[in-house]
C-alpha cells in the first residue's frame, strides 16, 4: 500500500525565551483508506501533532508529507475537525449554511445529501445553538465532508458528548468511512474508542512525545457497538494500551 501521509521526525517547541518541547520526534506513516488513532497521556502534544499535520501550525523540525508533497499550509483534501464543535460552528449561520461553508461550489443538492447522511435533514434551517452537542458535532462532520476531503483529521471529536451519543457518533464515523474511502487520523485519550474504531493505534510517550509503539488492531470488521467490545482481541489490546499508559513515568 502506498503511504498517503508521512510524518517524519516531526518536532515542536513552543516559546523562544523558555522553550517547552511538546514533540521530540514523531514518525508515522498512514496508508490511503486507513483508520489510525493516536493515543497518549494527556498533555503529551497529541493535538499539536494533529494541527501540524493539518498545516495549521508549523513544525519546529521534520516534515509532514501528503502524497509526497510537504505540508506547509492547510493542504487541499485535508480537513481538520475541531474538538470544540460549539466554537467551530458559525452561530450566525443555519445548519445548512454552515455545511455550505465547506462546499467548494455552492451545490444545494449536495448540502441536502450530506445532512441526510448525518441524519439532520430536518434541521437544515435551525441554528447550531438550537441543537444538542451530538447534533452539533454531526453538523461539523457534514461540513467537513462537504469539502470532499481524502484525509479527515479528528481531534478528540467525541470527548464532550455523553456516552450514548458518543457510541452513535462512532457508528456514524465508521459508516461514513466505509462509504467514502476516507483516510482518518484520530487523536483521542479514550483507549476503548481507539481500539473500537481503528486499524492501527500509535501510542505516544509523555511530553516531549515520540511514538512509543504502533499496534496493529486484529479486531475484525464490521465493528459492532456491543459485541466488538466483548471480543477477546478488543479486551487484549485495551489491556495492553491501558497498562502502558498507566505506567509511572
Amino acid at each position, binding site marked *: 500500500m502506498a503511504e498517503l501521509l508521512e510524518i517524519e521526525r516531526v518536532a515542536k517547541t513552543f516559546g523562544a525565551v523558555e522553550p517547552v518541547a511538546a514533540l521530540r520526534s514523531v514518525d508515522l506513516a498512514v496508508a490511503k483508506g486507513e483508520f489510525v488513532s493516536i493515543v497518549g497521556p494527556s498533555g503529551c502534544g497529541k493535538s499539536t501533532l494533529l494541527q501540524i499535520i*493539518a*498545516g*495549521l501550525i508549523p513544525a519546529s523540525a521534520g516534515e509532514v508529507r501528503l502524497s509526497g508533497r510537504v505540508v506547509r*499550509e*492547510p493542504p*487541499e483534501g*485535508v*480537513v*481538520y475537525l*475541531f474538538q*470544540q464543535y*460549539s*466554537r*467551530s460552528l*458559525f*452561530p*450566525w449561520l443555519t445548519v445548512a449554511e454552515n455545511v455550505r*461553508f*465547506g462546499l467548494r461550489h455552492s451545490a444545494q443538492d449536495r448540502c441536502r445529501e450530506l445532512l441526510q447522511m448525518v441524519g439532520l435533514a430536518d434541521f437544515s434551517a435551525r*441554528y*447550531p*445553538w*438550537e441543537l444538542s452537542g451530538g447534533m452539533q458535532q454531526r453538523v461539523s462532520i457534514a461540513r467537513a465532508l462537504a*469539502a470532499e476531503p481524502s484525509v479527515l483529521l479528528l481531534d478528540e471529536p467525541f470527548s464532550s458528548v455523553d456516552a450514548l451519543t458518543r457510541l452513535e457518533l462512532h457508528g456514524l464515523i465508521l459508516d461514513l468511512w466505509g462509504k467514502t474511502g476516507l483516510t482518518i487520523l484520530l487523536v483521542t485519550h479514550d483507549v476503548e474508542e481507539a481500539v473500537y474504531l481503528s486499524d492501527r493505534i500509535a501510542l505516544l510517550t509523555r511530553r516531549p512525545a515520540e511514538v512509543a509503539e504502533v499496534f496493529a488492531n486484529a479486531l475484525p470488521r464490521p465493528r459492532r457497538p456491543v459485541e466488538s467490545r466483548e471480543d477477546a482481541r478488543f479486551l487484549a489490546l485495551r489491556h495492553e494500551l491501558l497498562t502502558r499508559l498507566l505506567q509511572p513515568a
Partner: protein
Amino acid sequence: MKARIASLAPGLAFIAFWIGALEVAARNGWVNRVFSPFPSEIAARLGGVLGSPALLEALGSTVGLLAAGFGLACAAGVLLGLAMGYHRPTYALLEPTLELLRPIPKPALLPPLILLLGLGAPMKVAIVFLGAFFPVLINTIEGVRTVDPVLVDVARTFRRGKLATVFRVILPASLPMILAGMRVSLGLGLILVTLAEMLTGTHGLGAQLVDAQRAFRVQDMYAWTVVLASLGLALALSFDALERRLIFWSSRR
C-alpha cells in the same frame, strides 16, 4: 407583554410624579415662572411645534446630517478597523496617529472645521464623522482581535482566502463589538450635530433651540428640547431593534 408593562409601571409613575411636581411648583410661583419649565405650557407649545413646517425642516436637516456623518464613520471605521485588527503592519503604522487624535474632545475641532469648511452642511457632517469614527474604529479593532481563533482555523482548514475569511468569518464574529461601538457613536453624533447647529444657528433642531432661547420664547425652547430628547430616544430604540436582528445569535451560543 403584561410583565413588561408591570416592570415599566413604577418608572412611568415616577416620571408622572415629577412632571406633576414641576407643574405645581410653576403654577404656585415656587420656581421662576418665566425661565423654569412649565409642563402644561410646554405641552401647548409642543402642539404648535409639531404642527409647524419648521419641525419637518429642522428634523430633516438634523437627521440628514447625522445620518451622513454617522454612516460615513461606520463605513470608514469598520473597514479601517478590519485592516488594523487583522493586519499587524497597518496597525503599527496607524496606531500612534490614532492615539494622538482620539483623545481630542471633538467640540474643540469645531472652530478649525468652521474655518476650513465654513458654516454649512460639510462642516457639520465632518464633525459628526470625527466624533462617530473613533468608537467604531476602536471597537472593530478590538472585535477582530478577540474573534475566537478556532473560527479562523476553521476558515483555514477549509482553505478560504484572506478576503473570504475577513468578510465571511471575522466580520460577522466581531459584529457584537462593532455594534456596541456604533451605539456609542450614534449618541456622540447626535450631541455633535446639535452642538454644530447651535453654533451656526442656521438650520436644524439645535438652531431652533438657540433661536427660541435668544428670543426669550422660553417654553418654545423647552418644547424643542423635548423634540430632541424624543429623537434621541427614537434613535436608541431603532438601534436596539437593528441590533436584535443582526446579532440574534450572540447571546445564545
